[in-house]
């Protein structure tokens, strides 16, 4: 059993080694260097990166060839006699001043680029508020009535044991952020819990989202396309599993998308006014639970001892009085990792997930929680 498992792993290693050699040639362009990206800033950054890189290569060539020459010619085995020169103020001044001048040559373009990069406020067409939440992103269009949560796609979650052949593994989300090309988009970053960092290399935007702060950055996307990124600041257990997908489209498509999003929100609001059956709540609750709660409390409700409490048999969950259970999900628990879901989920989702927790995961209280109860608890 163990041996077959091991031999399977070794064969994976062997095929991997072979494919590695062939693939590294095929993908060399993207895999070796920074992307040039699709915004004016990303191109500026790329040029600056290459400038500093070639300066380093130049210095490296000079220093390492001097070293190599010396190692080759001034070796005892070739009969080299040691000279005895040391201390020369002139030489010391030269190798202090020349690097200083090179640094000034780097600092001047770097200053200009930095000033461009930081100019998020001037003439922004669209403002998107980005909120980092363990382990998903919430996008709010400040001037539109559109707000949604974007998290790792189920297609990636399903194959974590063996993602072979899964294109965009860990770089796919359920709902991408849609933005129009050719418009200056200003991003405002904020966090609900720990520090995250929103990073899309092609947009040259990497900015920390920090609780208690609002940071900003900007991008004008010049080319339609799908641009993928990831959280770049360690934010706990599933830090590696909160990707970003930006869908850059024409302005007309963007407007259409906005209309669709608003219609979806309206439908969800009317669903909240209805009475829901146990069966429907459980079905919806399971999806909500796996997407939002399972990361900490475990897919079976077992939690992680010492870090995250179990759902199974939890006194709050199995209490016949629903009030405490509703309160902790809606408002969170201060001073812990349990966040307030009122800002992340709608009434139906919260009602469904609470019902699911009470009647599944090894619990069987037997009651339902209706969306109206959540509305009252907000």
């Amino acid at each position, binding site marked *: 059993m163990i041996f077959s498992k091991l031999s399977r792993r070794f064969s994976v290693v062997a095929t991997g080694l072979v494919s590695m050699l062939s693939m590294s040639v095929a993908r060399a362009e993207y895999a070796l260097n920074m992307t040039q990206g699709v915004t004016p800033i990303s191109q500026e950054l790329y040029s600056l990166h290459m400038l500093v890189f070639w300066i380093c290569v130049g210095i490296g060539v000079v220093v390492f060839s001097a070293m190599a020459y010396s190692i080759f010619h*001034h070796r005892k085995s070739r009969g080299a006699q040691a000279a005895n020169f040391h201390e020369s103020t002139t030489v010391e001044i030269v190798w202090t001043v020349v690097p200083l001048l090179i640094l000034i040559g780097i600092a001047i373009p770097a200053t200009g680029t930095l000033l461009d990069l930081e100019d998020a406020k001037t003439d922004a067409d669209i403002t998107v508020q980005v909120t980092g939440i363990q382990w998903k992103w919430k996008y709010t269009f400040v001037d539109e009535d559109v707000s949604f949560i974007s998290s790792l796609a189920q297609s990636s979650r399903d194959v974590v044991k063996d993602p072979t052949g899964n294109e965009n593994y860990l770089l796919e989300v359920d709902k991408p952020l849609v933005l129009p090309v050719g418009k200056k988009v200003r991003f405002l970053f904020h966090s609900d819990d720990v520090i995250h960092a929103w990073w899309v290399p092609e947009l040259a935007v990497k900015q920390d989202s920090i609780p208690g702060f609002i940071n900003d950055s900007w991008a004008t996307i010049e080319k339609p396309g799908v641009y993928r990124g990831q959280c770049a600041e360690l934010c706990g257990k599933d830090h590696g599993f909160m990707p970003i997908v930006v869908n850059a489209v024409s302005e007309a498509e963007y407007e259409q998308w906005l209309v669709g999003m608003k219609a979806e929100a309206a439908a969800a609001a009317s669903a909240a006014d209805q009475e829901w059956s146990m069966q429907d709540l459980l079905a919806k609750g399971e999806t909500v639970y796996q997407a939002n709660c399972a990361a900490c409390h475990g897919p079976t409700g077992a939690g992680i001892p010492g870090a995250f409490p179990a759902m199974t048999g939890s006194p709050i969950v199995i209490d016949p009085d629903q009030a405490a259970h509703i309160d902790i999900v809606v408002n969170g628990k201060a001073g812990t990792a349990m966040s307030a879901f009122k800002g992340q989920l709608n009434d139906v989702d919260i009602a469904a997930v609470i019902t699911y927790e009470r009647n599944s995961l090894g619990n069987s209280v037997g009651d339902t929680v209706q969306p109206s109860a959540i509305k009252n608890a907000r």
Partner: protein
Amino acid sequence: MSTEITHGGHDAHADHDHHGPAKGLMRWVTTTNHKDIGTLYLWLSFIMLLYGGSMAMVIRLELFQPGLQWVEPHFFNQMTTMHGLVMVFGAIMPAFVGLANWLIPIMIGAPDMALPRMNNWSFWILPFAFTMLASTTFMEGGAPAFGWTFYAPLSTTFAPDTTDFFIFAVHLMGISSVMGAINVIATILNMRAPGMTLMKMPLFVWTWLITAYLLIAVMPVLAGAVTMMLTDRHFGTSFFDAAGGGDPVMFQHIFWFFGHPEVYIMILPAFGVISAIVPTFARKPLFGYSSMVYASASIAILSFMVWAHHMFTTGMPVAGELYFMYATILISVPTGVKVFNWVTTMWKGSMTFETPMLWALGFIVMFTIGGFSGLMLGVAPVDTQYHDTYFVVAHFHYVLVTGALYSIIAAFYYWVPKWTGHMYDERLGKIHFWWSTIAVNVLFFPQHFVGLAGMPRRIPDYSLQFAEFNMISSIGGFAFGLAQVFFLYIVIKTIKGGEKATDQVWEGATGLEFEHLPSPPPYHSFTEAPPVK
């Protein structure tokens, strides 16, 4: 002994010479001898290197291919965190304190360290600190999983109870480091042999003197940071909790005010080691001794003024970013002076390439590569793309592994004949060097590429486009890990026996330890101050 008495001149001295090391285990527990304590530090650091290294193996194993095969994300985060903490505080720092203990007294002609009992204590705190830290792996909630930089609020509000063990372990390490630093300063300033003026001291002594001041300046800052964490966690304060009016970014300022000088704490003594080895094997004095001293001092001073280059993405004001960018890239000037000096020292020398020299040359080349990526990272706007990616991982492993660790291994090969009286096996030493050097580049060089291509650091799994380079990196990692087990064999073999070393050990070696002491030196050396030219 009679020659010693006529030499030493008084009776008390005779008694002194009669007691060698105590017998058995208690020798090591109660010792106040700088050589014993140096040995203890070096062994602790080797054990920690293997412990931290085995966690690196777990990391490379999980990253060998995409998908989660071996460990859970939560455990993976514990591995990256503990690997960092153990390597920084357990492997690199204690190794340099061990070298300081062994070498400073015999380099400046002192009989021992100035404060021998404190010396014993500062060592013996450490095994307890690391046991406490490591024990959290087996507790509910697990070991620290918030990165070795432990940013709040992930390490405060969102961390498990075991974090308190981490806090106290860091306190103990800090106490140990500060005591060690006080001892180094007291020794260097008070115990130099007559004639050993400051500007005659070997560079290793100089760089350690500067390092000791850095330690005293910043370890209390780290202690302050963890104490604030502790009170945030248990006593209702909100230093770093935005909901209570606190500031999570302030944590980063405090941490990096410690953290950047800490980088130089781990590299300045390495500069000292390389400055000793290169002249010996080039058979030519160091090109610019005084400029090396001034460069070390300027690096140390600048190191206090650049901390926020780790925070370019936190939303600092533009003026702040500009200042920290200029100050950071400025450090490459004194660092360049160092490298140019070593190369000029080799120039027109009469070089031989024994194992210590190979490691020193490896240091110069690969540390410089790490310096280049450091310069690139210092350019604030482009740091937008580099920050928190594998490019950063590659950078700091080039300066810490092929930098600091390489210098420590170079120092071992250079001075071990002096310490033990035995030459190491030259053939094995060279195999160790070439094996490590090929492996370490296979390990870390591809990480520049995946970093630039967009792979964030500290992730247990990655998308398929990064697969090839991660596999290459892991293979290099396993080979490098194995090379250090081979090193353990070389160390033990050298201690047990080997060709007898001469007193000067190396043809071109200079300094009191090579000119005035036998190999190995007596348990108590320089009870009489040696003459200094």
